[in-house]
């Protein structure tokens, strides 16, 4: 039987297109020291560290080596240290690895850290270009955005989603980001402004796409006994998991639905005893690197029927004052330090459950969902956080 695990503290950094005020370990220290302070623990209390990032975006082989001191893993403390890298789900996988460490009974307090300096990658597109297999698929100008664009093309064709729906998602997320001091893009604009932004990969415009950010995030995961002692209101993990889909883009012809995420949701909801996600979740932090994906995620996560995601947006169900606010942080659409973004979703969901989300706090959150996707839309992670222990 896995042990009960909770989040006891969270640390986020301010994100921007280039955090030129800090060297990499200084950026990571900003997140880790904040997390340790938030959880009322010293580096001595941490039993192990898991660290997530994707090397080419940072421009060095094994960035965890440069950042080992900043992760309270080095020197006299000599802690076990594990590196995690699974594309866009890197941060979500890092949270899972920390959770597994504690749930196994082998460690009581584990620090999860994820970071990325996409702002220091002067040509991030060159890294994204190498994410596609060099044998069959690389020659066709497929980057991250083109894959999201073919999802959008399918969804519009089969379900009638419009460019206006996508624009509204962008506007909402950027409005939410205004309440988040850690967000990168904090700009207000209208649906009309969004629809006037340049077309990048039809049907996706500039306003439908996330920025490239520098940022880091750290979370303290603790066993039941430790969590109860450390945090006045821990965020309990009641469900968590990961799923993979086929490698080849052409093996998944149903781009209007995100089947792999729907399968993972069923598994994780069973674990957390969630029957009616729209009613039971009070907030969700989804990995919405591109506007269309937020709609696919509503549907796959069972917030609505397949094809009804755009209706949720139009009716404001997922707005800050709606039934299920999505991404009060502004989401990945406003900030994307890629390897960190999955862990930021977990951190934001935990802050909501702990009641510590300040201006972006949703009132009276009992249950929150955190999601990430990665690997050219092939991988997903989910984590459910609750005010009550499972």
């Amino acid at each position, binding site marked *: 039987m896995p042990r009960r695990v909770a989040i006891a503290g969270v640390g986020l950094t301010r994100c921007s297109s280039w955090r030129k005020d800090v060297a990499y370990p200084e950026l990571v220290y900003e997140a880790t020291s904040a997390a340790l302070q938030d959880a009322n623990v010293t580096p001595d209390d941490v039993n192990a560290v898991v660290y997530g990032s994707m090397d080419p975006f940072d*421009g*060095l082989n094994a960035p965890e080596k440069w950042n080992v001191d900043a992760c309270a893993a080095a020197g006299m403390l000599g802690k076990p240290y594990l590196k995690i890298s699974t594309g866009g789900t890197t941060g979500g996988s890092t949270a899972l690895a920390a959770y597994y460490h504690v749930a196994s009974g082998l460690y009581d307090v584990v620090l999860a850290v994820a970071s990325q300096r996409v702002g220091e990658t002067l040509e991030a597109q*060159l890294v994204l270009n190498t994410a596609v297999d060099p044998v069959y698929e690389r020659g*066709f100008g497929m980057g991250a955005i083109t894959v999201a664009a073919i999802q959008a093309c*399918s969804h519009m064709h089969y379900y009638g989603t419009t460019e206006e729906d996508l624009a509204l998602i962008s506007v909402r997320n950027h409005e939410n980001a205004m309440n988040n001091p850690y967000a990168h893009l904090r700009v207000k604009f209208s649906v009309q402004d969004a629809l006037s932004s340049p*077309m990048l*990969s039809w049907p996706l415009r500039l306003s439908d796409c996330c920025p490239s950010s520098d940022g880091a995030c750290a979370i303290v995961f603790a066993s039941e006994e430790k969590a109860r002692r450390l945090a006045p209101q821990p965020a309990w993990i009641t469900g968590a998991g990961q799923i993979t889909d086929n490698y080849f883009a052409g*093996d998944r012809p149903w781009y209007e639905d995100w089947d792999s995420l729907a399968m993972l949701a069923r598994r994780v909801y069973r674990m957390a005893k969630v029957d009616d996600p729209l009613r039971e979740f009070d907030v969700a932090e989804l990995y919405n690197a591109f506007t269309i994906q937020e709609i696919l995620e509503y549907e796959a996560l069972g917030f609505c029927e397949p094809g009804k995601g755009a209706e949720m947006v139009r009716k404001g169900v997922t707005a800050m004052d709606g039934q299920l606010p999505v991404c009060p942080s502004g989401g990945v659409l406003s900030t994307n330090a890629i390897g960190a973004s999955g862990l930021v979703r977990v951190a934001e969901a935990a802050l909501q459950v702990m009641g510590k989300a300040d201006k972006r706090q949703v009132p009276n959150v009992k249950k929150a969902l955190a999601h990430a996707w990665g690997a050219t839309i092939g991988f997903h992670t989910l984590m459910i956080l609750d005010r009550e222990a499972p």
Partner: protein
Amino acid sequence: MTSQQEEPLTIDGRWDIPYRHTAGQAASRFFRELKENKRIVGGRCPSCRRVLVPPRSFCERCFVPVEEWVEVGDKGTLETFTIVYAQFTSLPPPPYCVGVIKLDGADTGLIHYVGGVDLQDLEAAKKALSVGMRLQAVWRDQREGKITDIEYFTPA
């Protein structure tokens, strides 16, 4: 101490490493068929009977070797697509259209260019292209054993 206004120092970096990727058994045969015989071949799984295009040496669903080769059509159906209007670093000059194409006789989709349509004007391009439309391969005269031996797929 330095003042807040002072620009922090920066250090230039570069990661520029050449590689040589092995295409493997299935792809090597697929590419040779393109070049020498102007044929598109897939592999049929002995267990689930799906025809995988592009071919692979094993079926990921049944986890068995795929050894039967079958020819599929150079015509197919457009499953979904995007038209790229931005110049991304080291990607082709815009505009270009990339689609997932299910060739006749295949059970999986192939990523390839869709051409022969004026893409400069988005509204016109949206009228000319649609999910479910029929496409036909346009072959290069000089073929070199690459996926781009098919230049693009054009409306049939």
